[in-house]
């Protein structure tokens, strides 16, 4: 906490980059945390990119445009985008019902929302198979088809938008809605002009997380999709088969593509959160 002035150094000569208020123990804490974070996350992820880059751009491009791989990537992105759209609508609707509606058994719904997050992904796949697999009690068999990818993504991304939107909706000041109503706004207008703009950042953040989660999904598909090339095979499965064929450069190339998507999502989240913080 000693300021540079007391050490006899003028403040101005201190580069802005070194501005901090760390004490000795918090400095050590930061050092150890950064070391651990680097060893566990940053260096391994850097290794993925480095391995992909080692083969050069042409190699990278050839890997991801390989017919089977590009088909898997397209399927993944298409299903993830579609699922995100569905979640934007149904996730907001679920959050709305949880906050504004009141009925017996609502508590149970709260519990159900979190199950996909807590359930091991391999179990999630098995769970979906029990209703949508062979001999489906509903007569809807999606196992081993492209639709199974869509279904699995829907399941694992269920909580993201709900859990982002719900607290914002709870904090929403109902006075504002009543004020709008007193000024003659209809319920649809109130939703569109008053409520939706307040929810938009939370929906955007939830949508980004939900898209990222879907793009990288693997576990829930193992038993459900059958991983059929050109039909139900997703990007992460392609990475896995590349690893199993000892083609690490190829695996790293596809992984880099997924990583870039993850990074974009992180950036979107950061921007959205900063905008919300500014709005206060």
């Amino acid at each position: 906490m000693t300021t540079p002035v007391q050490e006899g150094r003028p403040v101005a000569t201190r580069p802005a980059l070194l501005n901090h208020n760390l004490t000795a123990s918090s400095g050590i804490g930061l050092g150890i945390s950064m070391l651990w974070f680097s060893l566990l996350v940053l260096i391994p992820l850097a290794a993925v990119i480095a391995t992909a880059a080692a083969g050069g751009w042409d190699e990278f491009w050839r890997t991801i445009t390989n017919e089977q791989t590009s088909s898997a990537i397209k399927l993944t992105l298409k299903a993830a985008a579609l699922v995100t759209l569905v979640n934007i609508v149904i996730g907001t609707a679920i959050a709305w019902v949880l906050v504004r509606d009141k009925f017996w058994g609502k508590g149970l719904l709260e519990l159900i929302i979190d199950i996909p997050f807590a359930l091991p992904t391999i179990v999630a796949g098995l769970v979906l198979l029990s209703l949508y697999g062979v001999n489906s009690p509903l007569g809807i068999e999606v196992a081993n088809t492209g639709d199974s990818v869509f279904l699995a993504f829907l399941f694992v991304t269920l909580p993201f938008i709900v859990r982002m939107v719900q607290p914002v909706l709870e904090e929403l000041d109902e006075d504002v809605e009543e004020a709008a109503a007193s000024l003659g706004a209809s319920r649809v207008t109130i939703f569109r002009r008053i409520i939706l703009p307040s929810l938009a950042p939370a929906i955007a953040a939830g949508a980004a997380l939900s898209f990222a989660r879907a793009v990288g999904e693997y576990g829930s598909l193992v038993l459900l999709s059958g991983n059929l090339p050109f039909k139900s095979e997703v990007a992460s499965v392609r990475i896995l088969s590349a690893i199993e064929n000892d083609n690490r450069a190829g695996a790293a190339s596809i992984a880099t593509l997924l990583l870039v998507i993850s990074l974009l999502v992180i950036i979107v989240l950061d921007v959205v959160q900063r905008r919300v913080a500014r709005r206060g």
Partner: protein
Amino acid sequence: MASRRQVRKGPFTYLLRLAVVTYLVLLVAWPVVLVVTHTFEGGTATLTGIFSDPDLVAALELSAYAAVIATAINTLFGVVVSLLLVRYEFPGKRIMSALIDLPLSVSPIVVGLALVLVYAGRDGWFGPTLEGWGFQIIFATPGIILATAFVSLPLVIREVVPVLQEIGTEQEQAASSLGASGWQTFWRITLPSIKWAVVYGVVLTLARSLGEFGAVKIVSGNFSGETRTTTLAVEEKYLNFDQQGAYALSFLLASVSVLSIIIVFGLRARGARVNETRSHSGAPVAELAPSEGRTS
């Protein structure tokens, strides 16, 4: 907070409720119930059968061991990083706070690959050196712990950071003014204030760690009885046409997940109740206002 005003219930309200309930039943509730009924189709024999198979017991033990170690590491790391992010200023803080969330959006398969590229004993960046010192990481328990710690890394931080922001620094300053050192302030004031957030974080981390599949599949080598975790055993059982066994193991894992959600729910409800008694204690509104308006 006052109870919500009575909502005007039109046909739209009921329609929306019906749609939401139907969606959740079809997507989550019904399939989960089916797994439970499948498990007990043949009585409790398949469930008890798990515990007489030494390989499965080993898988359960390995999963529990890796989850506990990873959770312990992530809890310590999470509390330290949360404090750094909320209470201190340092160069690179913004990048760090953004990157901390990265593990949540990275594919488990990419996680596995990343760890193999760095820690593989034969040709990883650090692997051969570590192997030279006698540490095997990939295809061994440490690799499973690393993969598990990676995927559940931000969960404690995401719970603790908002609470730290919410409680502010006034109590800590008061403790300092009464003579408490940094450590004393942390143990006596800060930690008790974030206690429940840490507990939620731990429960969520534990549940996530027990259930990790993709990353562990790549780093573990999946050797039965040695590096096969419970989730890997589910896959193996199912692919070997032992559906009953797969369902039983899944039931076990799902029970742990549902239990952890219920625990977190209970704790949250408890927190809400404490707030409720606070606002019903007859204290004038003006006295409650500052703590709510102080988040600026």
